[in-house]
């Protein structure tokens, strides 16, 4: 019988592409035989805009890269600038930064896991993590005035100290969160449908993951123990006791397992930082007009999605000559064209969801 392949255009306006991602699939029946990923629908030219902003004005733009984890994006930029200008920041600011960064990591993973499992058909599974995320966003909104675009960090510290209600809110979260972890494991881990949809689907070998520059949970699911917080510790991360969870074969199920374990590790870090939180100022002495010396600096941190890098070139004026971000989701999804081949459409949706990428970051 004569058969022929056909083309299916997935996205850019489709709920399961998590934003404006477009994948052109070449299908033979229901099986993918070719794929081409198109990005750029959300390109705002942030790197060009930043050439016309002063150094402190860059911070709010970073919130809009990975908009599910704005604090972590603030962090990489302010730390790059502190490295460039040799600024030591106060202890209290360091501890608050770690606490907030890990809270945002939990919030981001809550979206990653929830939406992932919702895409596989389990609608109720999205609401439990979103309840926890909502608590964190409420805390952050109370602290910074915004739910997602915080603009809370400054070059040299923080915009202001945490307010008096923050501690009770965090106490409440610390008491309630372990219960969620327990419940959610019971709800998902042994679910037959979830296992059937994800085990041995979208398997990636460690070699291939390294070659494609995968980072974050997607890399660790392949069994590579790589976490910038351990290999190149930044800030005060070397003071905390936490593990780097890894998966075994790098399939969709492992990506879920690694994210869930990572959430627990972040929770451990938050508790340690909270216990040791010192008193003192939250802002170092920084000149009013920030004019870094001529030169360039690259710095990278572990974002919820992977390794976020920031490259800044200064020409000695109050405006940066060049700001570039290494966005983890951009590198992560470049592997799609290769791993989609041989999978059925339903599996492709599972792979897309398991990667937990953010288009704001991919397209910059």
């Amino acid at each position, binding site marked *: 019988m004569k058969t022929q392949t056909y083309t299916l255009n997935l996205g850019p306006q489709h709920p399961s592409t998590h934003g404006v991602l477009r994948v052109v699939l070449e299908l033979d029946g229901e099986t993918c035989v070719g794929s081409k990923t198109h990005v750029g629908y959300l390109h705002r030219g942030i*790197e*060009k805009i930043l050439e016309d902003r002063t150094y402190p004005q860059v911070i709010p733009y970073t919130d809009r890269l990975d908009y599910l984890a704005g604090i972590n994006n603030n962090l990489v930029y302010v730390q790059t600038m502190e490295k460039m200008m040799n600024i030591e920041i106060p202890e209290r600011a360091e501890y608050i930064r770690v606490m907030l960064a890990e809270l945002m990591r939990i919030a981001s993973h809550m979206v990653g896991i929830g939406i992932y499992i919702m895409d596989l058909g389990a609608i109720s599974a999205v609401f439990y993590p979103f309840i926890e995320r909502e608590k964190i966003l409420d805390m952050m909104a109370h602290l910074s005035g915004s739910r997602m675009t915080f603009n809370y960090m400054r070059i040299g510290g923080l915009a202001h100290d945490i307010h008096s209600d923050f501690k009770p809110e965090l106490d409440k979260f610390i008491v309630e969160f372990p219960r969620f972890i327990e419940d959610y494991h019971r709800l998902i881990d042994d679910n037959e449908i979830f296992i059937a949809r994800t085990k041995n689907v979208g398997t990636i070998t460690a070699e*291939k993951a390294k*070659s494609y*520059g995968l980072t974050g949970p997607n890399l660790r699911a392949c069994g590579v123990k790589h976490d910038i917080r351990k*290999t190149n510790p930044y800030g005060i991360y070397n003071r905390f006791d936490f593990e780097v969870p890894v998966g075994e074969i790098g399939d969709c199920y492992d990506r879920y397992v690694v994210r869930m374990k990572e959430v627990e590790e972040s929770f451990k870090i938050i508790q340690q930082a909270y216990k040791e939180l010192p008193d003192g100022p939250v802002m170092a002495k920084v000149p009013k007009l920030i004019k870094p010396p001529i030169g*360039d600096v690259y710095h990278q941190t572990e974002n919820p999605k992977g390794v976020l890098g920031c*490259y800044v070139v200064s020409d000695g004026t109050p405006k940066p000559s*060049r700001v570039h971000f*290494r966005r983890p989701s951009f590198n992560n999804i470049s592997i799609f064209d290769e791993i989609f081949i041989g999978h059925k459409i339903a599996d492709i949706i599972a792979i897309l969801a398991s990667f937990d990428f953010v288009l704001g970051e991919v397209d910059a």
Partner: protein
Amino acid sequence: MENKINYQEMLTGKFGDKVVINAEKSYEVYANADNSLEVLEFLKAEGLNFLADISSADYKDYFEVVYQLYSFDDPDHLIVKVKLTHDNPQVTSLTSLWATADWLEREVYDLMGITFINHPNLERILTWEGFEGHPLRKDFVSKSGRK
């Protein structure tokens, strides 16, 4: 952060004066457009197996392509820079060494207009086909007239 291995010494031993050492920064070297592929291949074999980023900068007189090399196992870090002229900004593609170079180089090509020789699919990635110019160049003027 000091590297465990002195890559600068290692590179001078292997490539002689074809690789220029940055005396101020122990983690930075300059290769040139002719030997960048060899240099990076050598460094990859020596353990710097994580190509974190390819970025570029326009210094008006020349371009710089900046490779950030890390390792998946060690804290080592090395920056390899390649200077390119404005008239002929061309450098060899790294797609034969790392698959991630594909998209990273397409981004540099799209926004800065640097051509990567032997790249399998050098197309625009963030802007659309038919877009004119390369926005991150300092002499780029957008249609609205904004610099």
